[in-house]
């Protein structure tokens, strides 16, 4: 799985839409599964599963009807459609809700159905655009296990997200995106190691104090970033203990992809 990590407006959804031919690139060349886009986008789309960010299920139809409609559009032979629909319902754990209208499903169920719809034809490539945006943490965890299961089955997935944790947990490979450009790419581990080390230490204090810490750290050759009411010293495992102690009581934590992102782009992920 490749994760596109970047803030809203970085061009993640646009990238997804370009891959399906629903947005046209102004320059360059796109191929998906060896199909030239947009010329052969229909062929490419028949081998891809797309899970959009905005829920576009047919709310007046049942879960089952939504799936069988797409089973037909994805050219699954008529005889095989019921089995494909059953399988998709099972993936989404909606077997007992197959006859419920979409409007009667919870937010999490709708999202699972949306994912199942993109999987009904066993695609070779799945595009997941912000799969857990707007869902509460518990539902998000559920979806993560669903996506993780897909990944372990060997399905190739391209996922966009602006949630650090999502990218860190699910992506084998992360592309950090800012203003339409990839600014860094690698495994979450390699990205952290290369850009921000293994440990980060946060210091809290009044704004004036934080500004002073920032200056001192910079003089000592340490990278820092603002994190709301605190500043974070990156790669703090390399800093002299004496220096860190002089900063006051710091809170150590593991460096994460957000540190990488902020350091590389100067932007905040939200």
């Amino acid at each position: 799985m490749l994760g596109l990590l970047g803030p809203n407006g970085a061009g993640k959804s646009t990238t997804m839409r370009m891959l399906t031919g629903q947005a046209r690139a102004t320059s360059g060349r796109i191929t998906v599964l060896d199909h030239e886009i947009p010329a052969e986008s229909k062929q490419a789309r028949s081998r891809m599963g797309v899970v959009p960010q905005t829920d576009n299920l047919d709310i007046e139809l049942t879960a089952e009807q939504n799936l069988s409609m797409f089973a037909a559009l994805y050219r699954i032979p008529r005889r095989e459609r019921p089995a494909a629909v059953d399988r998709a319902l099972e993936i989404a754990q909606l077997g007992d809700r197959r006859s419920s209208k979409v409007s009667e499903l919870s937010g999490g169920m709708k999202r699972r159905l949306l994912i199942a719809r993109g999987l009904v034809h066993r695609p070779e490539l799945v595009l997941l655009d912000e799969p857990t945006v707007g869902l509460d943490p518990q539902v998000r965890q559920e979806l993560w296990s669903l996506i993780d299961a897909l990944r372990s089955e060997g399905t190739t997935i391209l996922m966009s997200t602006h949630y650090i944790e999502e990218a860190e947990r699910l992506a084998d490979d992360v592309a950090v995106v800012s203003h339409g450009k990839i600014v860094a790419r690698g495994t979450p581990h390699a990205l952290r190691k290369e850009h921000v080390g293994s440990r980060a230490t946060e210091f809290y204090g009044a704004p004036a104090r934080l500004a002073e810490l920032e200056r001192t750290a910079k003089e000592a050759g340490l990278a820092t970033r603002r994190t709301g009411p605190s500043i974070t010293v990156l790669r703090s495992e390399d800093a002299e203990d004496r220096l860190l102690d002089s900063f006051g009581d710091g809170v150590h934590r593991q460096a994460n992809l957000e540190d990488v992102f902020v350091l590389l782009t100067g932007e905040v992920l939200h």
Partner: protein
Amino acid sequence: MPTGVRPTRRYEWATFEGVWNRQITLFKRYWMSSTTGSVVQPIIYLLAFGLGVGTLVATVDNISYVEFVGTGSVATAVLFASAFPGMFNTYVQRVFQKTYDALLAAPVSVDELTLAEGTWIATKAGVYGSFPLVVTFFFGLAPTWGMLLVPFIGFLTGLGFAFFGMWVSAIIKNIEQTSYITSIVLTPLFLVAGTFFPISNLPQGLQVAAQFNPLYHCVELVRAASFGWQMPNDLYHFGVLIVFAVLTWLLAVAQLRKKLVD
């Protein structure tokens, strides 16, 4: 490996099957309100004019006035059953429900989507359009073999107006703007189509204008199917309806593509 067969052609049956399946499933839920909306209004016009004005006017062009309006009302019913779904349903599905975004992420092209939606609407328009004719049977209209062509005439006319509505739906900025089209374009079209009064009595300018009104050609064809063909005039009417459908189809595809593909 995907289980489906790879699409290769520009227009494929699977797309139509998929889009039509969806509409049929939805129709099973809405057939009552959809049918009422499309059928009752033209029949009310038919009864109001046929029975009301019919007491003042006995015959038009040697046809009893009820039969004159009854055959003409086919065009009104076709218009209501095609232009309105074309505008409203297409707008709602594209803008509010984002259905078209979902369909275009599957192996469906804008051309196929437009054609599939348009032919679905036109098929309903062909069926609904025949209702006023059936009602007129009860007022003495004699069934003829030619009338079997009326659903087809309704389909062809409805196809053009469905595409017209779809084109409009992709131009307007919000759904309220459909009222401009309804009042400025559609109302005059259905009033000056020869449905309720013959256009031959109108001033020369309006008679010429009526030649550009697809509904007028629809009305003429339905009357020809009911009371006798007049060649080559009727071929000309068919030709105009075909040109209308092709033209609006091209406009609808181009405009919808503009809105659906960034």
